[in-house]
């Protein structure tokens, strides 16, 4: 197990060859930044997907020919439907006015058909997809209803994007793992070469291979963990810098407040870095100096 002596010898080794270790940590940090950035994007995309998947909104666009009593009847029927929170009728004129206010544009050139009247239905966020689909199917059959928008297509596209992001992150993770193994393995082999006399002396005074390897494993592990921590620090700095500059614009655009990597993922990155670093060191130490 990890003893104080092993840690102390590892610390001594790292301090004496700090340039070599710093270079290794920097290389690992660059690799981990790529992985961290991908995870950051995926995390936020997933939050956006989650937000819109549970937006709880249905826009029921009405035909121009629908009469006011039919609209009222439809509103009443929707209000009475289980899972519906509220129902609001938006006339064609109001829709035009709302859009003009939001976009601050002159809409004189647009025809009346561009802004159909609609009923905006707010459903419970926990309403099951099957229930929503059933309600939409029933609504579509009504004669006054022209089209129904559930935003499902948009969230499907977002879900595909998230899946793509996850796949890309997976590939990036493999690349990062390979680079950790290569960088830490090379660093440890180089350190072993530079500390050849030290290893010879240790073997001569009766140190077991475990005793000799211990500090190198700690060094490899520390390099991996420090590389990941460096990457997280760099990403966090950039993230909060960009977030501060964009202020609330980004959140109003995507509908959710962008967030940094959650603690479990951040800690996981550090843990993976530490484990991979130790593994790389172990592989690099397969052949110790023979004495």
């Amino acid at each position, binding site marked *: 197990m990890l003893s104080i*002596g092993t840690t102390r010898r590892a610390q001594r080794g790292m301090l004496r060859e700090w340039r070599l270790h710093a270079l290794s940590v920097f290389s690992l940090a660059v690799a981990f930044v790529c992985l961290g950035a991908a995870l950051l994007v995926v995390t936020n995309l997933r939050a956006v997907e989650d937000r819109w998947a549970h937006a709880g909104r249905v826009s029921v666009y009405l035909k121009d020919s629908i009469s006011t009593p039919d609209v009222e009847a439809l509103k009443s029927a929707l209000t009475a439907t289980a899972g519906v929170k509220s129902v609001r009728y938006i006339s064609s004129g109001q829709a035009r006015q709302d859009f003009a206010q939001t976009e601050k544009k002159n809409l004189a050139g647009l025809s009346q058909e561009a802004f159909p009247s609609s009923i905006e239905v707010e459903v419970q966020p926990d309403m099951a997809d099957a229930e929503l689909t059933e309600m939409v199917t029933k609504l579509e059959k009504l004669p006054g209803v022209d089209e129904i928008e559930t935003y499902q297509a948009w969230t499907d596209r977002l879900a595909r994007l998230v899946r793509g992001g996850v796949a890309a992150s997976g590939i990036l993770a493999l690349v990062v793992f390979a680079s950790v193994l290569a960088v830490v393995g090379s660093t440890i082999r180089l350190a072993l070469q530079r500390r050849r006399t030290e290893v010879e002396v*240790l073997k001569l005074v*009766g140190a077991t291979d475990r005793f000799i390897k211990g500090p190198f494993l700690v060094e490899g592990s520390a390099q991996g963990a420090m590389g990941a921590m460096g990457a997280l620090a760099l990403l966090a700095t950039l993230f909060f810098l960009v977030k501060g500059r964009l202020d609330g614009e980004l959140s109003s655009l995507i509908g959710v407040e962008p967030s940094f990597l959650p603690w479990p993922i951040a800690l996981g990155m550090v843990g993976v870095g530490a484990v991979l670093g130790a593994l790389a060191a172990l592989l690099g130490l397969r052949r110790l100096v023979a*004495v």
Partner: protein
Amino acid sequence: MPRFDDQDDAQESRAFRPLLRQGPRFARDAAARPILMFEDVYKSYRPGAPVLRGMNLVIERGEFVFITGPSGSGKSTLLRLLYRSETVDEGRILFMGRDIARLKDDSVPFLRRNIGVIFQDFKLVKTWSVFENVAITLEVLGLPQRLIKARVGEALERVGLAGRGSDAAGVLSGGEQQRVAVARAIVGEPALILADEPTGNLDPQLAIDILGLFEEIHESGTTVLFATHDRSLLDVRSRRLIVLDEGKAMDVAMGIAPAEEGYDNELPL
């Protein structure tokens, strides 16, 4: 921790008492046997050119033995076989009754904890301090830091380097570096000290000083094997002398005669 039986008779030997550390298969009766026995040992690095050819040798506990011979005669090989840096091709080497050649690889560190080795090139870690270079022997044994400090201090005092613990090993003179190497070898109180041309890089006066150091260590009960081809050292003290020639050990009791009395004719040096 068990001690050699014959150490009880050497109570005047101050603090330095060689100990037999328990390995995986420690045998108490080993203490009664010769510390080293070579039985028909063969060793070659190239086919048809054996360095040792059926060598037989017995070394008793507490002896100081010079091992000499021309270059390539197998002095270093003999020592390397003892600390299991090399393995014999044939024959047995019994260290405290146990066959070194048959030790499993994971038992070799335990063998080495009973042997202190000193080299011509000192084999110090130059970037470490004097203290660290000596203390590593005890750190390997897992002793507590307080004890390590005390015992390293004693060892440095014995080799005349008291108060030099914080100096970097790399800045010391050759003689001082060899003293550090000696301190590292004795600090663990090994049963056997192997010195492979320890004075080869030192001037004659320093060489005699270092030899004196080994004699002090020997006086405290440790068995010392001192490999050298420096004839002047062999003349300093009358000791048991083993001459290696043509792969065999020739025992020349009580030292050798000076060169002017036919030394060159008698010994293949």
